C-alpha cells in the first residue's frame, strides 16, 4: 500500500484537474506494482515520448495538452523517430516522417526542453549525485545511477510523462539505498591493461556483462583509474542493450563504490564472474557480422557523441578527409552541435567530410531507413541493434579503426590494441 501525502491525495481526487488526476493514477499504480511505501519528489525527468511508435503516442500527448498539462520539473526528451529537418532514409514513409515530426513538436508544448538526445547527462544543469529523477532511456538510466550516482528506475511510456507532470515517483528499486548494492562481482583483473585503458575494453565488457548478468547489479573490479566517463557510459549502454543492466559499480571509480565493501551488502557468497581477454575477443565476434563488398559508411555516436569524443575524433582525423562515397555520420545532440559551432569546430568536421545527425538516432527510426551494406562502428550498442533494424553487415572496431577506415575507404583494424598477445 502506497502511503500518500495530502497533496498527492488531492491530485488523485482530481482537485487539480483531470490531467494531474490521470497522471497521479498512473504514478500510484506503478508505485504499487514496484512495492513502494510512498512517493518521493523528483528533480528532473527524461522522456521517450518524443519517439513516435504509433498513433497512441500522439493521442496520449494530445490528450494531456488539451487538458492543460505541463511538466513541473526540468524535463528533457529522447531523439525523435525522424530528424526535424532534412531528407530521411530511402524507405521512410513520408506520412511516418510527418507523424514523427508532429509528435516531436507536440511534446514541447508540454513544457519539455527541445533536447532530443539520449544523453541528457551531457546537457548543462543535469542531475548530480544523490538526486532523484525519472528517466526512460536505458543507456542514460545506467549512466545516471552508476556514473553520476543519481537515482532512477527505468521508466516507460507514458508513465515517464506522468511522473514529470506530478514531479513524483514511487520510492522503490534504485531510488532506495539497499536496492543499489551489487549482487555479483565481475573481475577483469586478468584482462590486459592495454585493453582496459582503451574505450574498446568497456564496450566489450558491457556487451559481455549485459548478456551474462541480465538485470543484476555487478560490481566490476580491476578497471584502472584512467577509465574515462565516456567509456563507463559505453559499458552501461552496451550492457543495457545485450541485457537489462540499470546500475553497476566500477570499484574504485564510480561514486558509490570507493571499495568493494561499499558496493556490496556483504561479499560473502556473491557469485563471481572472471573475465579474460579471450572472453572479450568472443564479444568482438558477437558484435561483428562479417560481410562482403565495399564499405558504405561509418556510424559513430551511440549513445550521442560527447564533446570529448568529438575532440578525439578531430585528433584522429588529423586534418584528413573521409574518402568520397563513404558516409561518416556522427550522431549527437543539438546542444553539442551548437557548442561545436561556437568553438569553430563544425567547419573542421564538415571539411573533413564528417556529417552530424541531431535530434534522431542512426540505428532506430526513419533517418536511415533502408540502410544496407557493409558498415562500421565503434559502438557496441549500435553494433547490437543496427542489424536488427537495418540490412547491414557490421565491422566492429575502435574509433581509430573507424577513422582510418573512413579515410581509406575500406575496413581496417589500425589500432595497436588488436595485437594478438593482448587477447589471450
Amino acid at each position, binding site marked *: 500500500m502506497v502511503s500518500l501525502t495530502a497533496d498527492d491525495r488531492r491530485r488523485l481526487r482530481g482537485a487539480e484537474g483531470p490531467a494531474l488526476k490521470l497522471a497521479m493514477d498512473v504514478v500510484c499504480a506503478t508505485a504499487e506494482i514496484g512495492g513502494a511505501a510512498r512517493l518521493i519528489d523528483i528533480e528532473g525527468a527524461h522522456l521517450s515520448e518524443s519517439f513516435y511508435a504509433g498513433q497512441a503516442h500522439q493521442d496520449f500527448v494530445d490528450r494531456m495538452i488539451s487538458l492543460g498539462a505541463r511538466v513541473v520539473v526540468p524535463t528533457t526528451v529522447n531523439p525523435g523517430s525522424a530528424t526535424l529537418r532534412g531528407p530521411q532514409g530511402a524507405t521512410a514513409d513520408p506520412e511516418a516522417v510527418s507523424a514523427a515530426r508532429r509528435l516531436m513538436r507536440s511534446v514541447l508544448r508540454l513544457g519539455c526542453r527541445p533536447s532530443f538526445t539520449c544523453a541528457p547527462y551531457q546537457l548543462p*544543469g543535469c*542531475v548530480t549525485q544523490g538526486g532523484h529523477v525519472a528517466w526512460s532511456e536505458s543507456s542514460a538510466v545506467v549512466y545516471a545511477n552508476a556514473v553520476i550516482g543519481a537515482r532512477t528506475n527505468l521508466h516507460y511510456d507514458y508513465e515517464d510523462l506522468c511522473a514529470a507532470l506530478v514531479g513524483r515517483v514511487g520510492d522503490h528499486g534504485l531510488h532506495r539505498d539497499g536496492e543499489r548494492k551489487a549482487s555479483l562481482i565481475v573481475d577483469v583483473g586478468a584482462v590486459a591493461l592495454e585493453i582496459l585503458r582503451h574505450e574498446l575494453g568497456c564496450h566489450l565488457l558491457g556487451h559481455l556483462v549485459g548478456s551474462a548478468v541480465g538485470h543484476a547489479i555487478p560490481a566490476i573490479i580491476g578497471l*584502472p*583509474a584512467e577509465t574515462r566517463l565516456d567509456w563507463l557510459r559505453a559499458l552501461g549502454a552496451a550492457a543495457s542493450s545485450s541485457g537489462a543492466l540499470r546500475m553497476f559499480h566500477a570499484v574504485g571509480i564510480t561514486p558509490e563504490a570507493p571499495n568493494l565493501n561499499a558496493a556490496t551488502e556483504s561479499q560473502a557468497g556473491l557469485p563471481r564472474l572472471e573475465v579474460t581477454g579471450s572472453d572479450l575477443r568472443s564479444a568482438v565476434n558477437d558484435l561483428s557480422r562479417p560481410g562482403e563488398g565495399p564499405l558504405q559508411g561509418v556510424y559513430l555516436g551511440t549513445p550521442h557523441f560527447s564533446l570529448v569524443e568529438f575532440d578525439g575524433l578531430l585528433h584522429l582525423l588529423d586534418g584528413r578527409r573521409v574518402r568520397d562515397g563513404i558516409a561518416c555520420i556522427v550522431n549527437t545532440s543539438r546542444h553539442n552541435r551548437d557548442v561545436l559551432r561556437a568553438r569553430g569546430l563544425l567547419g573542421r568536421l564538415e571539411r573533413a567530410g564528417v556529417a552530424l545527425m541531431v535530434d534522431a538516432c542512426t540505428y532506430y527510426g526513419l533517418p536511415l531507413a533502408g540502410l544496407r551494406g557493409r558498415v562500421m562502428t565503434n559502438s557496441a550498442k549500435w553494433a547490437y541493434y543496427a542489424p536488427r533494424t537495418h540490412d547491414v553487415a557490421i565491422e566492429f572496431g575502435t574509433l581509430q579503426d573507424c577513422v582510418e577506415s573512413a579515410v581509406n575507404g575500406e575496413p581496417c583494424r589500425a589500432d595497436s590494441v588488436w595485437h594478438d598477445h593482448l587477447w589471450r
Partner: protein
Amino acid sequence: MSQGGGLRDTVALDLPEGAYGSESFFVREREAVFRGTWTLAGFGYQIPEPGDAMPVTVAGLPLLLVRSETGEVRVFHNVCLHRGCPLIREPVRRQKRLTCLYHGWAYDLGGRLRARPYFLEGGRHDIVDRKSGLGLEPVRSAQWSDLVFVNLGGKAAPFEEYARPMLSRVADYDLSMLRHGDRVLDFDVAGNWKLVAENWLDALHIFAIHPELNDFADQSGRERTEVDGHMFPGVYEFAEPRAGMVLDPGRRRVMSREGANRVWSFYMFPSVFIQVRPDHLVVFDLVPVAPDRTREHIHFYFMGAAADDTENAEARRIVYEAWDAINAQDIGPIEGMQEGRQSTAFRGLLASPYWDEALTHFTHLVNSHMADGGLAHG
C-alpha cells in the same frame, strides 16, 4: 531552465574524512595520486645547456633533471647507488659527469656509473665500463613544450593519453616560439593541495572575487569546466584584449589566429594548471608540502624576445601583477576553507548542477587513485 532546477541540498562530493587535513591521508595520497599519475617535475629552461642538472623533490622522492649531450632532458632518482646519498644538492652547470659528494662516484649524463675513486684500494680507482648496466635509476618522463613530467609509479597510461585533450584543443597554436619569462611568482598557501586544485576547476567563483577577470569576460558568458580523463579543459572568449590579460593588446602577434580572443585553461590532474592566452602561456605548479600547506609557483612563457626584452618589460610587469593579484584573491578563501572544513558544521560540498561536474569528477579521480592501490592493476 524555466522550472528552477536549482541547488539541491545534498552532499555532492564525498572524499573520505581526513582528506583535507590528516597526515596519514596525505602520505597515502602522495603515493597513490602523485606517484600514480603524471606530475610536473620541472622546466627545461632551468637546465638550458648540455651538462646542466638540478635536484627536485616530487611526491616526496629526490629526483634530478639533467640535460644530456644531445640536448634531451632526462630524469633520474637522485640517489647514488653506493650509500644512497643524493647525487646533487644544488643545480650544476655544464658538467660531463655528475659526481656524488660523499665518495666521488661519478655518473655520465645518461646516468651510467663510470668511476669509483679509490674503490678497489688506496691508489686504485675503478673505471666502470659504460656497458656495465650500473647506474642511476631512471624515472619515466615526458616533455610537453618546456614542461617536464614524470610518472614515478611507472604504470600510468602513456603521457600522450593524459595530455591529448590539451594537445588536440590547441593543435593550431604555434608554441614553438615560447620562452620562459623573467619572473616566477611563488606562493605559500596554508591549505591542502586539493583546495587549490578545486579552485582551479571552480569556474563559478570568478564573478565574486575576481573583478578584473569578470570585467574581461563576465560570468554570464562563461562555460563550465569540462572533463576529459585526467584533463579538465575550460575555455572562454573575450571581446576586447586588455593589458595584463594579454601581453600585447595591440595583438601584433598571437599563437593562433583562431584563438586571438580565446583563453584555454587546462588542469591536468593532479599538479599542474595551464592557461593558454593568445600571446602567452601561464603555468601553475602545485607542490603539496603538508596536509595543510601547499606551495604554488606561477611560470610564464611569452613569444620569442618578448619573454625578456626591455621593449615589453612594462607589459610583462602588468601581466605578472595581474596574476599576483588574482592569485592573492584566491588564497584568502582557500586558507579560510582549510579552517572551515574542520568545523563540525561543514557537512560536505554542495555542487551546482551546472558548474560542478568537474569538481565531482575531481573527487572521483582522487578516490579512484586512492582505491587503485588495492586493485589488480595497482
